């Protein structure tokens, strides 16, 4: 436990100050627009915590962000920039839809897990492809991920349109009830907010992330490759294999996020005109959480709360909900440009100056 705390110390203070500064930037922008910042932030929080339904829906909003945040961070720990969470998310959605709609006659305790696993697996394969091309051919992972994001989008639309389409609609049929991962008991308790098992799985994934990355030999290798591939290779590690492995696990997280969105929230898949954006938001969550699994839980909590609450801000204070993107952008800015934050807190509190140990 003390080690977990150690991972936070130092960066924790900076994160909190960055969040406060981000909210201040948001307030200034609201003042420029002639809005009332205090009223807006109050409406934001009362939107989230005002009733059990909205609170449940906020949890629903947070869940995929945790997983796509892990997808970004896991690869980042191995020195890879996974901008393809978006595509892996879509592939996960589609795989889960196909299993959820097309496979009949299975009991719920087999069908639902099967659909979830399919989503994770295909997300992982989609990402591993990027890792493979990088390892074998040295193709920049950023460019292949971006290309694969678009390919995933059109492939998903093709599959929905040609194999899963509900007659006359721009969406698939509903998944079978046996594939649903909804949590009816908790949903009823929260005025039918769309709560599903993915929340629990996402939290468990943080433990897996931590354990794998910092407590196993494989995790050590991934981090070694991330810090210095040449040194890792000299020490006898297979850099290429680690790159593929890191991308595969990273993609599993994003794929799971997509699978849960279908199986737990929507229960069908639409034909998408553009990318859903959850994978890109995961990058922000990963950055806010400083690529630490427990930091990401908090980062997703913050991101999800602000995003879901932004609707309340526009009812309550008339502020365009896009403001929240400015706030989130500023928070990441201050976390990234720590020099600014350090400059601000230095006079009050700064004794230890230690190198960040990853």
């Amino acid at each position: 436990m003390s080690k977990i705390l150690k991972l936070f110390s130092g960066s924790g203070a900076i994160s909190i100050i960055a969040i406060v500064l981000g909210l201040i930037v948001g307030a200034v922008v609201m003042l420029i627009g002639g809005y009332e910042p205090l009223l807006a932030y109050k409406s934001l929080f009362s939107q989230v915590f005002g009733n059990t339904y909205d609170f449940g829906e906020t949890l629903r909003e947070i869940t995929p962000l945790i997983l796509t945040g892990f997808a970004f961070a896991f690869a980042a720990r191995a020195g890879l920039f996974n901008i393809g969470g978006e595509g892996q998310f879509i592939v996960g959605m589609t795989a889960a839809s196909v299993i959820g709609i097309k496979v009949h006659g299975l009991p719920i305790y087999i069908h639902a897990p099967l659909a979830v696993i399919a989503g994770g697996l295909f997300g992982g394969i989609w990402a591993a492809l990027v890792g493979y091309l990088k390892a074998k051919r040295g193709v920049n992972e950023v460019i292949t991920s971006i290309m694969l994001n678009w390919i995933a989008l059109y492939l998903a639309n093709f599959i929905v349109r040609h194999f899963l389409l509900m007659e006359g609609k721009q969406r698939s049929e509903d998944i079978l009830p046996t594939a649903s991962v909804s949590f009816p008991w908790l949903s009823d308790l929260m005025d039918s907010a769309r709560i599903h098992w993915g929340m629990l799985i996402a939290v468990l994934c943080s433990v897996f992330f931590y354990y794998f990355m910092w407590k196993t030999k494989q995790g050590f290798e991934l981090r070694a490759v991330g810090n210095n591939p040449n040194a890792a290779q000299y020490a006898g590690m297979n850099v290429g294999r680690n790159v593929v492995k890191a991308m595969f696990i990273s993609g599993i997280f994003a794929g799971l996020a997509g699978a849960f969105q279908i199986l737990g929230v929507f229960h069908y898949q639409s034909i998408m005109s553009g990318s859903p954006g959850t994978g890109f938001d995961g990058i922000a969550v990963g950055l806010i959480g400083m690529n630490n699994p427990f930091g990401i839980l908090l980062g997703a909590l913050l991101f999800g709360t602000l995003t879901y609450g932004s609707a309340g801000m526009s009812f309550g204070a008339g502020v365009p909900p896009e403001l929240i993107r400015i706030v989130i952008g500023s928070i990441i800015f201050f976390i990234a440009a720590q020099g600014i934050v350090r400059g601000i807190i230095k006079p009050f509190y700064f004794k230890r100056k230690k190198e960040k140990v990853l």
Partner: protein
Amino acid sequence: MDWVTTLGQLMNTTLVFSTALIFAALGGIFSERSGVTNLGLEGFMMFGAFAAAVATYYAEDAGMGSAAPWIGLIAAIVLGVITSLIHAVASITFKADQTISGIVINFLAAGATLYFVKLIFDGNGETPLLTQVFNKVAIPGLSSIPIIGEGLFHNYPTTYIAIVLVFVAFYVLFKTPFGLRLRAVGEHPSAADTAGINVNRMRYIGVMISGALAALGGATVTLTTTSTFAHNTISGQGYIAIAAMIFGKWNPIGAFGAAAFFGLSQAVRTYVTLFSWSKDIPQEFIYMLPYLLTIIVLVAAVGRSAAPAALGQPYDPGKR
């Protein structure tokens, strides 16, 4: 329809679609050649598209007529330079992670542009439709050449500017002392520093040029294609421009080729429905094609990309 006209039109549409990508990819090159990763191209394009829409709208209002879109272009450059300073300050002065700082730009742009559109236009999520936008200009004489006359010399002013800029950028980067310094700073900053070049100053200039060019790209979309700015005016072109830059190996001519390739594949979409042999191909596959081909070309032919050596590393004079 005879094939000469079709080919000419296809070439023309290709250039129309590639113009924005050419600008943004050139922008990316200036920043990355100086050693600063620029993942914020998408954001700069958004800022540019937004500035162009708003400025052109007010210029129209002020009765400036056909000069209005030019005011829009200038406004885009100004906002592009100003917002690029956010990226520059964070990543050069405060040595923040350049990738992260680029993503920050994308977030800020997505939020700020729509926020201010709603603020200025009473809660509407879209700027009013512009009446004064760019029209295609035929260059006298040249435009009557078969195929390339229609293809090259009957196009938007912005397209001509983009093509000229490709060669200007090439000249500046590879034939002038300024370009040599910019590249030196991106390849080996400490050597450049020893030779008396102010590393951070060169990088600031690189990023600012980058912001200006990418914003011009965004403005092009508003002023030639959509005539308005909304949340989906810029949706992914910035990322495609990054791909074009890497694909073109950080060389203006290469990036131009890659941007034209993406433009062509976008133009082809409208043409495949015209022929009997091709109209049954599922549209999703046509859409997918450019991205698939890019990966195949990269894997088969290009291989390891030749990024500037010091790309992504803040310059720290105390470190060797």
